């Protein structure tokens, strides 16, 4: 399994791109941040509405923002994959070693996964459809508030652990 992951996670083409064009890493980091701002801005406003802090919005109108949040997530995911697969070109450490020894990276990925599970449950339990009917001033059901609070907390945790990744310990 380790041999498979070591082979699969290192992409020489991405490493070459980062070696050859020195701007790639910095520009992708900027795009990662733009994606994060889009994701937090759009998903955050929906979460705040469900928690009762921006009740003036009908929920259906706020949900129109979700494609922009998805776009932000895709931007983060694609640049994040580039960071992992090309990290050897930046710090000379195999991505497998980084992934298996940096506890902050592991926590970040865990919280991204939990945020995804939370979103899935929001749809599967029918809460997504239930809140669609909420007009301005109406309160969200308690279960929807729990999902919204969890979503906000999980994304904040993702950002927090992402910032701690460079201070993680690598054990090659």
């Amino acid at each position, binding site marked *: 399994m380790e041999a498979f992951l070591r082979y699969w996670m290192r992409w020489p083409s991405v490493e070459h791109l980062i070696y050859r*064009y020195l701007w790639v890493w*910095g520009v992708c980091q900027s795009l990662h*941040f733009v994606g*994060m701002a*889009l994701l937090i801005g*759009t998903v*955050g406003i929906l979460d705040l509405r469900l928690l009762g802090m*921006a009740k003036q919005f009908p929920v259906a109108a706020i949900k129109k923002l979700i494609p*922009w949040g998805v776009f932000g997530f895709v931007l983060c995911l694609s640049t994040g994959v580039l960071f992992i697969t090309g990290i050897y070109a930046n710090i000379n450490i195999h991505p497998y070693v980084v992934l298996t020894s940096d506890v902050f990276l592991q926590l970040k990925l865990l919280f991204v996964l939990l945020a995804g599970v939370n979103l899935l449950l929001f749809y599967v339990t029918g809460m997504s459809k239930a809140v669609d009917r909420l007009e301005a001033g109406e309160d969200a059901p308690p279960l929807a508030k729990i999902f919204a609070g969890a979503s906000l907390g999980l994304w904040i945790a993702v950002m927090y652990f*992402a910032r701690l990744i460079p201070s993680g310990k690598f054990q090659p």
Partner: protein
Amino acid sequence: MWDFLESIENSGFSTYIRETPSVLGYSTVLALHTFGMAFLVGLSGVIALRVLGIIPELPMKPLKNLNVMIVVGFWVNAITGAILTSLAIRSLLTNWDFYVKLAAIACALVSLVKMRRYAFGDPAMRDDAPASADARRWAKLMLFFWFLAVLGGRLTAYATYIRIQSAEAVGVAAILLLLLASVLVRHANRSRSAEATRARASAAEPVTSTR
């Protein structure tokens, strides 16, 4: 002056934040700086999306209430930004990219205030009404300056030649994206006007008399 800056950099507070092995030091200040940025840029970006007519379904007036979160995001960013600057103030003040970042933030904040003034200035305005041309202009400028501020912020950590290469790459990408956007907008306008012409033609057709 240089001695004064050195004393700030070597003060007990700055040294603690910079050198403590605890994650509650430098990393947490950096994380708070990111939270502030996400709320400030993210929420003002949502207002810009409505002002630019990209999401016309969002009611205009309630967006004004996002101001509280935007202001909180700004102050979190300003305080943590001042702390982070104090950790390496001498190298930052001799880094031109740092001034680009600060200028971009100042321009973005001015654009945000102007956009808000034009978008929410008229109390009689309907929630579903399109924003004025002035509001749209300031919204575009604000998004541009926020992007520049984020880019400048990220690139302060890099060597000058990498910054210059990055600026060139972003410039080329921006020109290509603008060309693509102008082609798409022209195509959308053409199909919209063709649709309007068809609708006018069908409305003008004489109704067949039954007499």
